[in-house]
């Protein structure tokens, strides 16, 4: 991270947020109502441990999803760039 400029660091966080939003959207759409409520409650008012456990339980393939979404978003950013240059 030392080699990123301040602006690039800001982008890295925004890209990170985009990836997380997409993962959560994907996972949320596959859960049943009671699981959705548990996951939502964990993030809204759960302890750090409860959040960790909820993520482990409901997003067990986080790493894979993260890698997939990161690749997709990189391609989409490049497509957006192509439109501008």
């Amino acid at each position: 991270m030392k080699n990123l400029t301040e602006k690039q660091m800001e982008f890295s966080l925004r890209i990170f947020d985009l990836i997380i939003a997409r993962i959560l959207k994907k996972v949320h759409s596959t859960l049943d109502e009671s699981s959705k409520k548990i996951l939502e409650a964990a993030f809204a008012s759960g302890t750090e441990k409860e959040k960790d456990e909820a993520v482990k339980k409901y997003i067990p393939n986080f790493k894979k999803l993260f890698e997939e979404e990161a690749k997709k978003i990189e391609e989409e950013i490049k497509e957006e760039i192509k439109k501008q240059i």
Partner: protein
Amino acid sequence: MAETTRAENREGLNPDQVVESAVGNLELAESGSYFEFLTDAKKYFRNKYKEGTTWAEEKKGELKDWAIRESKVSPEGLKDATKEIAKVSWGLARISPSIIFKVVYGVYDFIKTVIKKKGHISYGEGYEIGKEMFNFSAKKEKK
């Protein structure tokens, strides 16, 4: 990254502004899929991400020290040790900093390539640009 700056000066394009706009467009598209818990969830994952960044830096030092102590260690051994350390605690976001890092580099490298290419477009690309600007196809159809 320094090369991008040179490209920027040469072509008058600011890569940061281009990325700003590109990321902004994706964020805008994503804003429609808002969940109430997303804000809380993002905070949680952002903290993990920051922890991950710090953790990776710290472990890098530990690994280096360990490798120095065990001077006979092979590169494979070092790789295995990295895996072992990753197993010690839940590595949820511990992998993400490196992935994001690659994405940011990938995007800036892409801009650099596109900017360079801008001055050396192929016949096909030139035709497509001309088609857009002067509407070749429409003229051809009129004939």
